[in-house]
């Protein structure tokens, strides 16, 4: 047989449990708008029954634990997509800067200078001895050379800026991996003591998402509550309470910072996050545009110089180089041709308009003008080669922009799914509040009932 005092103790236990559940609800409501917060649920458990005589009697309820509701697999998927999105974002941002340099849609790109340069020779052909037309040729040449070197140096500046970002991003990665390692340690300690590490896990999730923003990560959850973090290509970032810092080191060949993990160069194997986007722009697309620009400059320099040397200047002397001749620093590479492009001629008389030394002859001026239609740049005309470069630069932005939208949609779906699992619903919490409140009130009623019963029992012995 059970006792009234036993019932009292069951009711008290119930009061405490419902109070605990209310606390969880209150905490959920408080964190309804906290980024990265996963809602918590109180896990209520029946207390072990006791044998009372021949009957098993329940002993009430206990608050077994408080659990955060999260789907680790979903969190990982979100981090992967986040990685992908950040990579695209930072790449598009970088290449947007690049496409602004080739401002052909506003008619202020290289094309104008290219056209003016060839046209100046056409004009000169109509009056080959005119000193003003000769001057115009030199000026058009200088404008063209300036446009090339300016564009080239602007490209280099953007590239330098991205290199700085690589270094900064690596520092941020290291800060985050240190934090994750610390949290691993704390979570393990809290778990071992049997408490809910929910808020620490939330913090760690937030850090992991931020990390995924910077670099592609693979996260493995261990039974002890810690996570092991590597890049998707296996470079170790965090293991237990240890983090391995990434380092940067200037590559003497490119002058750019390479990223190292435990002594191994991982620059080219980074597959996601801002670092990937920045490195793709810094080491891929920008050098490719730069090299096209260099090739075009080198082709123009050599074709114009060759034609100049075939002709004669106003004084009947043999023509000399129009542009300062480009000497490659590495055989077979035109690197630096655009950056260093300058006009070598200083005197308008030196423009070699004549092909036979006769002052009034214009054949070489016409030949120089016709270089516009010559297949001088990798089997293409200068205009077509440049037009292809424009197409390339435009695609460098437009292709990842469409991808960006697709990834954004996926991410939105996943986040929605995650929120439907982990997000705090105020409706739900309001319901919980009522439920726990009523349970609390009921338990209190039990106590007062037992109290009355006790009183009644005691009254039996009170002399009236």
């Amino acid at each position: 047989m059970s006792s009234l005092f036993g019932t009292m103790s069951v009711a008290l236990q119930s009061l405490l449990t419902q109070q605990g559940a209310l606390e969880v609800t209150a905490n959920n409501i408080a964190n309804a708008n906290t980024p990265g917060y996963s809602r918590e649920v109180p896990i209520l458990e029946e207390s072990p029954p006791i044998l009372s005589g021949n009957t098993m009697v329940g002993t009430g309820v206990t608050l077994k634990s408080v659990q955060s509701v999260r789907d680790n697999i979903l969190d990982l998927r979100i981090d992967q997509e986040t990685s992908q999105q950040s990579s695209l974002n930072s790449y598009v941002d970088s290449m947007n800067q690049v496409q602004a340099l080739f401002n052909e849609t506003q008619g202020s790109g290289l094309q104008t200078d290219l056209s003016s340069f060839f046209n100046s020779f056409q004009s000169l052909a109509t009056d080959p001895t005119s000193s003003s037309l000769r001057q115009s040729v030199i000026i058009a040449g200088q404008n063209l050379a300036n446009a090339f070197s300016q564009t080239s140096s602007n490209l280099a500046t953007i590239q330098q800026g991205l290199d700085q970002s690589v270094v900064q991003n690596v520092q941020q990665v290291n800060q985050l991996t240190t934090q994750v390692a610390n949290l691993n340690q704390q979570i393990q300690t809290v778990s071992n003591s049997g408490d809910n590490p929910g808020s620490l896990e939330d913090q760690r999730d937030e850090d992991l998402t931020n990390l995924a923003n910077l670099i592609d990560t693979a996260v493995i959850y261990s039974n002890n509550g810690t996570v092991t973090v590597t890049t998707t290509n296996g470079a170790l970032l965090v293991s237990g309470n240890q983090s391995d810092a990434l380092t940067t080191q200037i590559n003497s060949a490119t002058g750019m910072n390479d990223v190292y993990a435990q002594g191994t160069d991982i620059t080219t194997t980074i597959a996601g996050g801002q670092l990937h986007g920045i490195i793709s722009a810094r080491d891929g697309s920008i050098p490719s545009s730069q090299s096209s620009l260099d090739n075009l400059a080198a082709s123009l320099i050599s074709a114009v110089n060759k034609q100049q040397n075939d002709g004669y200047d106003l004084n009947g002397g043999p023509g000399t180089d129009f542009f300062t001749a480009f000497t490659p620093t590495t055989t077979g590479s035109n690197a630096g041709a655009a950056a260093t492009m300058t006009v070598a001629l200083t005197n308008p008389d030196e423009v070699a308009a004549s092909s036979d030394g006769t002052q009034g002859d214009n054949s070489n001026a016409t030949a120089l003008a016709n270089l516009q239609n010559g297949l001088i740049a990798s089997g293409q005309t200068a205009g077509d080669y440049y037009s292809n470069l424009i197409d390339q630069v435009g695609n460098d932005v437009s292709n990842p922009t469409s991808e960006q939208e697709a990834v954004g949609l996926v991410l939105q779906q996943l986040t929605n799914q995650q929120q439907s699992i982990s997000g705090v619903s105020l409706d739900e919490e309001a319901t919980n509040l009522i439920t726990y409140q009523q349970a609390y009130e009921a338990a209190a009623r039990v106590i007062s009932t037992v109290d009355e019963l006790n009183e009644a029992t005691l009254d039996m012995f009170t002399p009236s």
Partner: protein
Amino acid sequence: MGMRVNPDMYSFILSGLQTNGKQEEQALQQVASGQKLNSLSDDPAAAASLVTLRMQSSSDTQYLQNISSLTGSLNVADSALSSVVEALTSAQSVGVEGANSALNTSNQQALAQQIQGIQQEILGLANTSYNGEYLFSGTATTTQPYAADPSSTSGVTYSGDDSTNSVEISAGQAMPTSLPGSQLFSNATTNVFKSLQDLYNALNTNTNIPAAVTEVQNALTYVSTQQTFYGNSVDRLNSTQTFLTQEQTQLTETEGTTLDVDMAKAVTDLTQTETTQQALVQAGAQISQLNLFNYLPAP
């Protein structure tokens, strides 16, 4: 228990507003600039073709400039040659008059003086220049082509060359800017200056005047034939100019189609994004009112 939904309805509104904002920005930029192509990435292929179009258009402008400066010099040369033909025609009349046996020596010498005048006139015309360049000295445009030279049988010396300058008037089409004096005024059998010198000598000495007149007549025919080059050239320039102007109009039109925005569509797009924005904001306002706590009795 039913499926749990994302309690943060605002996230949908927010992403909707962001997407819509992007579209609004694009539409607004198009309306403001009047261009549908505002950066290369809007349409890389179109931007690339824009470069080629503008290269071609710019070349055409240059060809048109070449044509206009060429037309000037060709017209000047043509009118100089017309004067040469006129002068030769009068020389011919003077010669015919001199062949009349009724004339006495002094009359004939007076006629010879007239021929000398015509010789000087034609010498001047043969040295015609345009923009400081001699028109009939071949490519040696800075050298005066003809100078009087009593020691020469033609009475003049030619210092120009036998070459011709050509100027591009459209892609791949070059046109000679002029003909050298050595070709315009003489060939293997005929020579304008020698025919006049011969007529002058014939009149002075009253010998072989009819033969000298025939010589002048042949020279006249020859120069007239050569002159057709200029007339034909001007015709060709005119037709090329028409062609280039049409091509430019075409290019400008294509450039417009590539670059310019369809204003009606852009404005509609803009209005649509504004409507969408209003709808989203209203939906957002609705959400805030739906919360169970509002229905709980105050304690």
